[in-house]
């Protein structure tokens, strides 16, 4: 086939295919794209205690451990936006000490080979224990181990559960709107009713 004919073939088929628009997509969203949107909403509906220095212009720090795909979605979704009137910064977490400065950390319990960080979920939680850091993950027992918000799947949808006692224990205030949408879990044992 001569190059001229090939080019015309390319031209014509290209036009034809471009014209055939696929049906509005009913395809699913990437889990990380949806997680990123949830994380931003979690921040919107949570209040942090004032910083000891009183600074109000310091950026909101979102730390991500072991999920570069999620980092990318967070970058894109927060680009040029303010949360609580503050700029947003996304940190890739590799050492536990970095997590303590964050407002929210997302811990990927099973990172892919390319994302692996040699720090376990327990170690991340330990690093931010008793600090006003909103900890988020998607793994069984995350709330029992001291985490605050855990994603879970219901059918094809992403839902979340909140450890309400943990929120208060670290000095965070969460909007009732968030709590209304979540499955609220009490992790502290409820004291037995006093015996009569």
């Amino acid at each position, binding site marked *: 086939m001569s190059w001229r004919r090939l*080019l015309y073939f390319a031209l014509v088929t290209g036009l034809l295919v471009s014209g055939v628009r696929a049906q509005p997509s009913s*395809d699913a969203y990437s889990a990380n794209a949806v997680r990123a949107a949830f994380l931003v909403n979690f921040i919107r509906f949570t209040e942090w205690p004032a910083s000891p220095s009183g600074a109000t212009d310091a950026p909101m720090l979102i730390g991500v451990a072991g999920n570069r*795909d999620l980092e990318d979605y967070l970058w894109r979704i927060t680009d040029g936006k303010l949360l609580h009137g503050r700029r947003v910064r996304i940190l890739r977490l590799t050492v536990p000490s970095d997590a303590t400065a964050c407002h929210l950390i997302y811990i990927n319990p099973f990172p892919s080979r390319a994302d692996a960080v040699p720090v376990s979920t327990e170690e991340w939680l330990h690093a931010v224990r008793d600090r006003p850091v909103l900890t988020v993950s998607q793994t069984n027992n995350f709330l029992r181990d001291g985490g605050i918000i855990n994603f879970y799947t219901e059918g094809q949808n992403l839902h979340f559960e909140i450890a309400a006692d943990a929120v208060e224990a670290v000095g965070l205030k969460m909007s009732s709107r968030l709590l209304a949408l979540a499955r609220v879990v009490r992790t502290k044992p409820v004291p037995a009713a006093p015996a009569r």
Partner: protein
Amino acid sequence: MLHPLIRTSLLSAIAFVAAGRIDAQLPPLPNPKPDALDDIPLEQLMQLPVEFVTGASKYEQNIQRAPASVTVLTSEDIRNFGWTTVADALRSARGIFINSDRFYDYIGNRGFTRPYDYNSRTLVLVNGHRINDAIFQQGSIGTDFILDVDLIDRIEIIHGPSSSLYGSSAFYGAVNIIPKKGRDYDGGEASLAVGSEPSIKGRVTTGRRTNNGVEYTISATEWYSKGEDDFTLPQSWRDNTGLTNTVARDRDRMHHQSVYGNASWRWLEFEAAYVKRDKDVLPQVFFTNLTDPSEATDERAYALVRVTGHPNSDATLSSTLSLDYYSYEGRFSPVFLGFNPQRLDSEALSLNYETRWHQGFGDKHALIAGFEYQKNFIQDVSREDSIDPTQSSSISTDSSYISPFLQFDFNLGRNFWLSTGARYDYYSTGEKRLTPRAGLIWNASQATTFKLLYGQAFRVPNVAERLAGEGAPGPNPDLNPETNESWEFAANHRFNSIWQADAHLFHTKSSDLITDNAVNAQEITTRGVEAGFSAYFPSNIQLRASGTYQETRDASGQTVVDAPRTLLKFNASAPIYENWLRASLEVQYVGDRTDNTGASMGDYLTENFTLRAVHVWGRWDLSLSVYNISGSRWADSTNTGQIQSVPRSVVARATLEF
């Protein structure tokens, strides 16, 4: 001749733009784009259908649908296994073997290597940008590679022909190397590596992504190696030269200097790289003498600007303009009487423009259309005989090519994908080539994928072969392109979130291969089977193994030079003390091969071990590697016979993150 071609390409480009505009005027999709997901109320967010993929990352998902068989190695692999060059990384990949004459490293792929072919049959790319030069078409992968391996984010190895997207030299495969971005450093790194040869390598890198969206990386590396102090000359050297020396002293030194930078802001991206490598050439490689120096300097550089836009919600249009420079200078003192010390110089300067439109149609179909144009302004090759000027020669030429390409990916119902593509290459030197590719992909289940792949490829004769041939037959301006036709059947299965396995059957037939006599004379067929598995445990233990059995024969049924039948690879990496100390072991077996005289070179087994400590005292990454633990000394084939491999060595590295 070129003008109507350019005009037609432009017309087709305009037509595609117009097609995109028509799309853009359609009402927007009801579904929000991922970037705007946070603007919808939480209640609706909880109603969105979500796709869950184990170990989800963009490229892993893509691999399932790629119309090729792909291996991905990551920056963590590079650090865990202590790889010092791209060649080291490739050694661990399924089906690939490396032939090193300790001057350059050559990729053996699909059962084929030809000693001293300059890697012209595997395309090397950085971020999709061609590294193979405009003189020898050499894809550098050793200490002459343009990037420090520490800067690599991942290495994608495309097994099998890829000329339908990349053109010449993507003959047996392509290796695309993706450097890290500023966000991967978010600060800087200073690194020092000290080796037992002795060698010393220092690197300083800084990179970040700022709040106003600017992202950049700048890095510089300097690397010296003394190589092997006392290189034992093989019997073949003594037989051929009639000399009685047994050792070449201090003839293996290497000096590498490189700088790299990239910067991006929104739709604009810049990248520039430069490397200069000086290397002593061991006497065995070209039968050089022991009294005068024999050494070579390779320089490569490129600078590119890339613009990426989204003409409609599902489209990506990117255009890249790049300037490439290549220079080679060799100073050799042959041992044979009648051959005088000589100096070889080559220089090339090229301008390359590529534009590529990727149009998705929902998540179902996709179209890639584009064209590449390259103008080689300078292609100079000269030889200067220090004593007899009549033996000197000098060639100056220039050339260009233009290549439109097209690929369609169709979703044929729920789980079947058909990918078809073709590229037409038109060279000012007269070569014309249409290379098609087709792949049928069946996602039989969430966990199982089958692929049936067909592809053709070609390699145009390089300047040296056409115009500056060395040795008796001289150059041959009438050479035709080499061609390749391949079939592959591949199966991949993910047993659970930890284990996965793959198997491949391939048949590849290469015709019109250019021989040492500068004629299109050789035909080679390889049949092979490959299988492998990988496992990644939540405890951070990683295992990877693969085996290849292949038979490579020429038209008369004879086995060909340097074509091992068996390749076995095993890589394991595991935390051994808490989470900060990690041990990694790789074992490689390469079966028996023959040299250019038909003599057996035997098989070999080699092992490398690396102990790595991460986040020591907060900011340090420390490692200790032992290469070739058992100290086996195998031979690799050269065009003059055989050359002994490098001895056991140890390298200690310290990297400070700041």
